[in-house]
């Protein structure tokens, strides 16, 4: 690995000052499972790693009646092992549990997954489906951004000079909610999504009609997508076969995949429809049982 400096600020203000001073020569170090490999392989040229794990809020997970706040550097295992998160946010647990193997999950964070800004990042469609909000700290203070607006192109995101992702917020699920995330990979684990789909639904009091829905797609466009048309088409229906088919084909139409070593564009399009149906079925089942 090339020579680097290492700093471990203890406050957000210190981290912001360091990042602002060094600009794109500095990079935030959370779990390091992407960054350290990228720097060693010469795919990312930086001078300093800013380890944010000494900032208490960055690895803190709080869950209460208002919702969930996950410090951006909180490792995946802290998320899926949290009893309250497991119970109330299964759609997020789905994603946290399939990012890498156990060793990766002990270190890798949702914040890192977002900041790496891969179109195929597993956490991102799940977070989009849950309507998550990014809390960004920077030289001008704090700002919030819907998670679907965070990634702007492969590997690039909305963070400006001196800014870092501090936390991810998700509102508490409404009564009758259910969410799920599924991805397709050609093996059982430890692979990059060919397509990933996150779905959340809210059912009415009778647990019959859909009153709200969100669908997030991964690995089918330069950034993970919120497919509003497809989700809106479910609202007011009982998510019967015709409504599900309709939502799946609308999601398929919104997908603009490329062909690469993981699958060609037609194959990915096909997978979008299959996965939307499967993920939706799990989300609906969870909503009915909630």
């Amino acid at each position, binding site marked *: *690995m090339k020579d680097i*400096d290492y700093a471990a600020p203890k406050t957000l203000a210190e981290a912001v000052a360091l990042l602002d*001073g060094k600009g794109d020569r500095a990079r935030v170090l959370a779990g390091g499972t992407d960054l350290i490999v990228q720097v060693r392989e010469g795919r990312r040229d930086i001078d300093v790693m800013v380890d944010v794990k000494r900032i208490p809020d960055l690895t803190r997970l709080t869950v209460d009646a208002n919702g969930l706040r996950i410090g951006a550097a909180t490792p995946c295992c802290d998320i899926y092992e949290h009893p309250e998160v497991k119970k109330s946010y299964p759609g997020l647990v789905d994603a946290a549990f399939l990012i890498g193997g156990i060793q990766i999950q002990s*270190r890798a964070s949702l914040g890192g997954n977002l900041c790496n800004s891969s179109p195929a990042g597993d956490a991102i469609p799940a977070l989009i489906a849950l309507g998550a909000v990014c809390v960004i700290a920077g030289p001008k203070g704090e700002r919030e951004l819907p998670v679907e607006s965070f990634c702007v192109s492969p590997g690039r995101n909305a963070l400006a000079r*001196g800014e870092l992702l501090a936390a991810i917020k998700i509102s508490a699920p409404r009564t009758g909610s259910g969410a799920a995330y599924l991805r397709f990979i050609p093996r059982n684990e430890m692979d990059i999504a060919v397509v990933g789909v996150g779905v959340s639904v809210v059912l009415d009091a009778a647990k019959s009609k859909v009153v709200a829905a969100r669908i997030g797609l991964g690995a089918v466009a330069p950034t993970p997508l919120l497919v509003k048309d497809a989700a809106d088409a479910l609202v007011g229906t009982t998510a019967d076969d015709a409504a599900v088919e309709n939502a799946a084909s609308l999601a398929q139409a919104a997908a603009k995949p490329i062909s690469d070593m993981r699958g060609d564009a037609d194959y990915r399009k096909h997978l979008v429809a299959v996965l939307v149906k499967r993920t939706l079925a799990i989300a609906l089942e969870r909503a009915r049982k909630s």
Partner: protein
Amino acid sequence: MSSSKDSPKSGLSRRDFLRAGGAAATSVTGLAGATLETQAQPGQPPASHIPVLGPGPAKISLNVNGREMSTAVEPRVTLLDALRNYLDVTGCKRVCDRGTCGACTVMLEGKPVYSCSMLAVEAQGKAIRTAESLVDGGKLDPVPEKFVQFDAQQCGFCTPGFVVAMRAVLDRNPKATPEDVEQGLQGNICRCGTYEQMRDAIYSLCNRPRRS
């Protein structure tokens, strides 16, 4: 700067010899603990008071298998390389060096991690456990013992990573099922393909009969 007194083995090893030469070469660059020269923008708090290590070696202390060991490493040195090349703790193996194969698995505060994908400086103050901790005198921990009994290795290079990952699952849940243990091994690869023998070892560890 030399860590030979803290090395697990006594006497001057080849590693110690090579390291002594390297240490002499790097000592002229000075130790870290300096501060980063940042050009704070107008109106920004200066960042110059935040301690920054590197790029030269910095003194670190690591708790490895219950022992405090100290050495000096550049911040770019991974935990894997610090353990193997600076502290002579060679149970963890360097294979893919990119966080996919699991041969470098160690426990950090009881959790399995890839030591190739974290910096040594990050591991200070955390309890690190390597495969060396799975033998006490001449007595093997039940995990490697079952590996021996069921011949669950061929070349054996991946084995330290597998046994540490397996021990992590069983420490966390002593009643783990074979499925739980296998779930905990999804981040380890054996290129010799001794998975079937490993399954025998896992079922035996979990006191379950294995249908063939």
